[in-house]
C-alpha cells in the first residue's frame, strides 16, 4: 500500500507528540506536578496513530486508562489535556476527570476510561448511533490484551457482530495486564483468533509498524463503513514503562525489553522517512522542534490555568440540578 507523504508526515507528528507528551508527563509526575495515577503510552505510539490516521473528526473512538495516545492521535488538544492532568480549570474536564477520564465530544473522543473493559460496550452504543442515524461514521474501540478477558469484550463483540455495527475493535497487545503476562492471563497466542467466536474477522499485525497498522485499519474501517460489520485487529506492541508511573516493571524480563526496544516505533518511522526521502534530515529536525514547541506550550498553558473553583465541584453532575455544597 502506498501511503502519501503528507499522511506519513502527519502520522509522524502525532507519534512524536505522543512520545514527547508522555515523556514530559512522566517527568512532571515524578516531580509531583501531576497527581493521581498516570499510565503512559510510550512504546505504543504506532497503534493509535496508524488507526486514527484513517478517521475523521466526526468518527468516534473509545479509549482506556492508557488514553493519552489515543486522544492525541485523534486530534485532541495538548493544552487541554495537559491542563487536565494538572487538575486545572482549563483542562478538558475542568479538572474533574484527570488522566483517566479525558473526553472531547467535538473530536468524537468518548472518553478515556478507568474501568477495564467498559469501552467495549460504549463503542457498541456509538456504533449503533452511527448505523441508526446512517451517518457514515465509524467507531474505533481501543483496548488492552488483558481487557479481552473481561466479559464486556465478549458481549460487545457478539452484539456488534449480529447487528453488523460499524466498529473496529483494536487490541493493543502489549503483552501485559499490569504484571500478568499474556501467557499467564489467557491460553491463546493471538487475540485476533477470538474473532472466530463471533464470526468477526480477526487480524494480527505488528503494532510497532505504523504502516502495517494503518493498512489493517484502513481495510477494517472501509468494511465497517460499508455495512459489513466489525473487525478485530490485534496490534502486537510493548509498553516501555511500568503499568503506571511508580511501577518499576520488575516482572518484565530484560531480554524482552531489549528485544522490543529494537522495535521502538519512533526510530523506525524516522528511519523510514529519511530512507524513503519523505523528509530531509533538516526537515525532520524542524518537525521535532515543532512538536517540542507544542509540548512546551501545553505545559505553559497548564501551569497558567487556575485550579477550579470549589463551587464547581457540585456542578455538572446533572444537566439541570446543582447539588448542595458545604460551608467550610
Amino acid at each position: 500500500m502506498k501511503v502519501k507523504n503528507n499522511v506519513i508526515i502527519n502520522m509522524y507528528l502525532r507519534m512524536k507528540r505522543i512520545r514527547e507528551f508522555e515523556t514530559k508527563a512522566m517527568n512532571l509526575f515524578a516531580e509531583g506536578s501531576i497527581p493521581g495515577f498516570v499510565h503512559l503510552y510510550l512504546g505504543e505510539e504506532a497503534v493509535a496513530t496508524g488507526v486514527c490516521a484513517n478517521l475523521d473528526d466526526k468518527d468516534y473512538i473509545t479509549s482506556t486508562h492508557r488514553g493519552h495516545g489515543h486522544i492525541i492521535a485523534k486530534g485532541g488538544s495538548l493544552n487541554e489535556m495537559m491542563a487536565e492532568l494538572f487538575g486545572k480549570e482549563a483542562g478538558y474536564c475542568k479538572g474533574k476527570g484527570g488522566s483517566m477520564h479525558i473526553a472531547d465530544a467535538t473530536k468524537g473522543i468518548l472518553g478515556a476510561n478507568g474501568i477495564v473493559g467498559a469501552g467495549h460496550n460504549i463503542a457498541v452504543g456509538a456504533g449503533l448511533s452511527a448505523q441508526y442515524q446512517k451517518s457514515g461514521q465509524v467507531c474505533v474501540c481501543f483496548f488492552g490484551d488483558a481487557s479481552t478477558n473481561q466479559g464486556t469484550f465478549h458481549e460487545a463483540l457478539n452484539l456488534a457482530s449480529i447487528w453488523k455495527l460499524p466498529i473496529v475493535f483494536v487490541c493493543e497487545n502489549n503483552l501485559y495486564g499490569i504484571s500478568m503476562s499474556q501467557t499467564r492471563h489467557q491460553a491463546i497466542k493471538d487475540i485476533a483468533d477470538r474473532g472466530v467466536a463471533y464470526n468477526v474477522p480477526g487480524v494480527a499485525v505488528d503494532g510497532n509498524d505504523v504502516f502495517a497498522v494503518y493498512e489493517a485499519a484502513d481495510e477494517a474501517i472501509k468494511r465497517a463503513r460499508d455495512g459489513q460489520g466489525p473487525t478485530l485487529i490485534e496490534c502486537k506492541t510493548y509498553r516501555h514503562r511500568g503499568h503506571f508511573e511508580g511501577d518499576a516493571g520488575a516482572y518484565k524480563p530484560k531480554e524482552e525489553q531489549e528485544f522490543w526496544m529494537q522495535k521502538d516505533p519512533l526510530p523506525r518511522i524516522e528511519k523510514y522517512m529519511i530512507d524513503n526521502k519523505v523528509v530531509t534530515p533538516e526537515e525532520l529536525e524542524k518537525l521535532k522542534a515543532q512538536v517540542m514547541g507544542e509540548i512546551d506550550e501545553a505545559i505553559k498553558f497548564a501551569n497558567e490555568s487556575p485550579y477550579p473553583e470549589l463551587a464547581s465541584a457540585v456542578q455538572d453532575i446533572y444537566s439541570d440540578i446543582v447539588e448542595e455544597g458545604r460551608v467550610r
Partner: protein
Amino acid sequence: MKTMTYGEAIREGMRMKMQEDPNVYILGEDVGAFGGCFGVTAGLFDEFGPDRVRDTPISEGVIIGCAVGSSATGLRPIAELMFIDFLTVGMDQLVNQAAKMRYMFGGKINVPMVVRLPGGAGVQAAAQHSQSLEAWLTHVPGLKVVFPSTPQDALGLMLSAVEDDNPVMYVEHKALYALKGEVNDIKPIPLGVGDIKREGNDLTIIATGKMVHEALAAAETLAKEGYDVEVLDPRTLFPLDKDLIRQSVEKTHKVLIATEETKRGGYGGEISAIISEEMFDSLDAPIVRIGALDTPIPFSPMLESYVIPNAKDIVHAVKENF
C-alpha cells in the same frame, strides 16, 4: 379520561415519545415481537419495527452499555432489564459510566437514557427475581430514580423520564402491571414532585411503589378507628420532594415510611434520616419504618407474603407506635 393498566400506561408513555422523536428507541431481551417478559412492550415492534424495538442477546452489560454509548452520541434509548435483579450484571455501565460521564467529562456530554427496572415480590419468583434494589441507585450521584405507583404516574413519569437529559432509572413493580386506573392527564409529571395520595391530619405515611396501595388500604382501616392518615407518594426517589414531606410532617408530626425493599440499608432509611436531620423539631414520635424482613425473598407463597410487608403490618405498626 381513560382507564388503563399500569403496564399499558408505561407502554403508552414510551409510544408517545417514540412517535414524537425518531431518536427514541427500545432495547432489551425479548422486547420485540415477543413483547417483553411481562408484555409491556407488546405491539411496539409492529408499530415501530426492528430498528427501534431491538431484541438483544442475554448480555445485560452490553444492553446498558449500548444505551450509554448511543445516548452519549445522540440517541435516546429506553433499555429494559427483564428483572431489576439483573442490575447486578450490568451495574458497571450504569454506575461507573452513565452516572459519572457527564461529571467526569466536565459537563460536556449528556447521557439521556431510561432504564426500565421491573422489581418487587409477590409472584413467587423467589430470591433472584423479586428484589427491590432502588436504594442502590439513589446512592449513585448522576442517576435520577422514579418509581410510579399508579397508571397515571406511570405515564406522566415515563414522558418526563424520556425527555430528561440525564440517566433516569424507571423502577416498576411487577405486581402492579395489571392494576387499572384512570389516566386523566396525558402530560409529563415533573421529576421531583411528590403526590399526596390521601389527605389526613394525624399521621404521614410515606410510601413507594406497591406500598402506596397497601398504605391506602391501611388508611381506610385506620380511618374506622379514628386515625386520619395522610399518604404521601414521593414518586421520584431522587430528586426527592422534600418540600412536600416537610409540609406534611409539619401538619401531622408523625411519620411512618413504608417500602417493600429489604429494610436494612433501604431508601426508607434515607428518608427517615432526612426527616430527623431537617425536620426534627416537627416530630412528636419515632419515625417508624416498614419494609421487607431482612431476608432473601423465599419462594413458598406463605413465606413470601410473610416476608414482604402489607397493609396489615402498617395498621399494626400505627396502632403500636402512634
